[in-house]
């Protein structure tokens, strides 16, 4: 995990963006790609760069599911919420993983080692029901598979 960026670093990172050119999302993506999330400070820096208010920037931050205001966990589980997964037991997998990890959907452990959030269908439905662990598909899961996977992640015995 990168250390908290200095204001100077943030300003340089978003220096290419201009007001009224549709640059809010590109700026948010750029910050998040570098630091993993968009901090309060980053919202203020982007607002200044784009000659608008932090309130407007925060409006976008809170609107989009992909923009995070906190660092992601080291191991992020994205649970696929799509219909093919649902029909093949996806919601029971979610319940079981959340109880195993003792986390709400969108939550992460206090030590930031692991977290779980809702993912949207990307059309890899042959692998349903599936989760993505740090972006990698783990598919054709049974509920029992999912519980064992969650236990491994929780205990730290999985890379």
């Amino acid at each position, binding site marked *: 995990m990168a250390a908290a960026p200095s204001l100077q670093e943030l300003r340089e990172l978003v220096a290419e963006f201009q007001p009224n050119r549709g640059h809010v999302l*590109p700026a948010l993506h750029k910050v998040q790609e570098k630091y993993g999330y968009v901090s309060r400070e980053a919202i203020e820096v982007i607002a200044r760069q784009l000659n608008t208010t932090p309130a407007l920037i925060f409006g976008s931050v809170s609107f989009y599911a992909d923009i995070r205001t906190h660092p992601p966990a080291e191991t992020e589980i994205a649970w696929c919420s799509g219909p*093919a997964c649902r029909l093949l037991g996806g919601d029971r997998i979610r319940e*079981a993983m959340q109880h195993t990890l003792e986390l709400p959907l969108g939550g992460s452990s206090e030590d930031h080692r692991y977290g779980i959030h809702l993912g949207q269908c990307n*059309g890899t*439905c042959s692998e349903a029901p599936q989760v993505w662990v740090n972006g990698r598909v783990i598919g054709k899961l049974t509920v029992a598979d999912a519980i064992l996977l969650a236990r491994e992640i929780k205990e730290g015995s999985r890379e």
Partner: protein
Amino acid sequence: MNARLESMIASAKDAWTAAQNNGRVKINVTVDTSSIAQGADATLGALREAVRANNLAADVQVTGSWGFCWMEPCVAVRSAAGTRTVLYANVTEDRVPEFLQRVVVDGGDMPELALGVVEGNPTAEIPLLADHQFMKGQVRRLMANLGTTDPGNVDHYFAHDGYAGFGMALEMDAEAIIKEMLDSGLGGRGGGGFPTGRKWDFLRNATADPRYIICNADEGDPGAWVNRILMEGDPHLIIEGMLIAALAAHSTEGYIYLRYEYPLAIERMQHAVDQAYERGLLGKDILGTGKDFDLFVFKGAGSYVCGEETGLINSIDSYRGMPRIKPPFPAQAGLWNKPTNVNNVESYANAPLIIRNGAQWWSSVSDQKEKGTKMFTFSGQVNWPGCIEIPFGPKVRDVLDQYAGGMRDGRKCKGFQPGGPLSGMLNAADLDLTLTLDPYREKGMFLGSGGIVFFDETACIVDMCNFFLAFCEDESCGRCTTCHGGTQRAVEVIRRIQNGGGRETDVNIFEQLVTTLVWSNCLHGQFAPTAIKTSLKAFRDEWMEHIVDKRCRAGVCPGLIRYVVRSQGDPDLPKAEDICPTRAIYQDDGQYAVDDALCIRCGACKEVAPNGMEVVDAIVQVVPAGAAAAG
């Protein structure tokens, strides 16, 4: 044709022909999001490494999807002499050494992995691919290059007449392009079916400048991935379509709004755009014609309503992606309040085919009101979750049997859902509907952008409604009370029913939601209750069973079922105790039991001890009718 374009196409064709005849085996590996999920990147790496290490006379190339998304990685092998190509499936990394030995070194076949012979003669063991049940009757025009060309190589696209449609359009005036589009009968492929040529004409007739061309690549319907297949497989086709639209409507700037859930499609579209700039097809003074067109790939950030054209425009515009109130329509005041045209990926992708081959050729493939071909993806409880391209018109039943391979485990189809979460659910009787737009419109729903989800008797209709409505609630932009409040209310009531608290008056609440959500500003709210509305008709018995009898026939709804120990002697019960995530299964005096208050109905115990555990109806106390009227 423009001389610079003509020479690029000609030299690309020469290079392609030379490469095809260089005496080396061609190994084309499908690398897309679906195949990577099944290990295609590892297969690609292993093939390249082995070819290099063994100094084999073979070229390994990345290509797009054949549509066999459930048996990836797919690999097509063309013989050194160039006379025979065979498509193989399930070529996983561990099979690479044997595969290379038999197919490349020995120059033979590997029938156990073969799907069919693409070109050349079939054998007793490997029939023609065109005779494969999944390929028969498909008309692959949009998908023509998929499996053949490298999506990362613009010269491959040129070599297959790429940008020739744009070259022809450069010599037509705007009216002629629009006339060709109108004559073709192409309707918007996002689901609306509105004539694409008319939309372009609106923009052409706009009075302000600049005017914008936007490609809606925010394919957000869960279970639909046709646009992803195209963008990952043949990105230049979409760019060429947008260039033609720009000529027709005098636009100088365009955006491809692509959902962030498709990182590989973003990467490939961006790469294709960069190549088009390098070749002078985008930017200032395109190919020396004096025309300008800048194109940007704009990455979304996770919002379903940004697939609504004005939500999408607001999102680029730096506002929250909330759909606008129409009018004004985008053709009058869209992006930055300037005239704007928004079309779906598949709509733009058809434009080069129409201009290259003529409206007559393009429309002749379909005898329906809807012209041309349409791509579909199938998912849910089917055997073959794949992607096809067919003319409009066949019955859903036939498509399910032929292209989706029927239902899993020999089960019966209980129903299906076309068109994403805003469309509705139909029962098996409606499998006789055709894949055209009208039958669904007549039912107050829509065929949609190409994703069709099929489900069998193990699916619970109430739980599926929970899924669709919870999705609509989560993705509501918040503008209209009918929508953000209505979907929230719907989810509350559905969950109460699932937890055993159904009341007969709930049907009245649904009725009110269905009749008030239609007042919402955009399609999201207007169609959010469609799943409830259509399923209350198609599956009324199942709804009333949940509400009145407190019974879930599929054994899904958490408050209507219980897990109990069926057989104390079952040797798998210790495994059940061990897997339970809430320690609901315990031993008391050597007897296993389930603490119902702790049980979350995840069913893991029954998976590991199928004979020891069973699901039974929960005994829910039925509240007398009228005792609790209000929700």
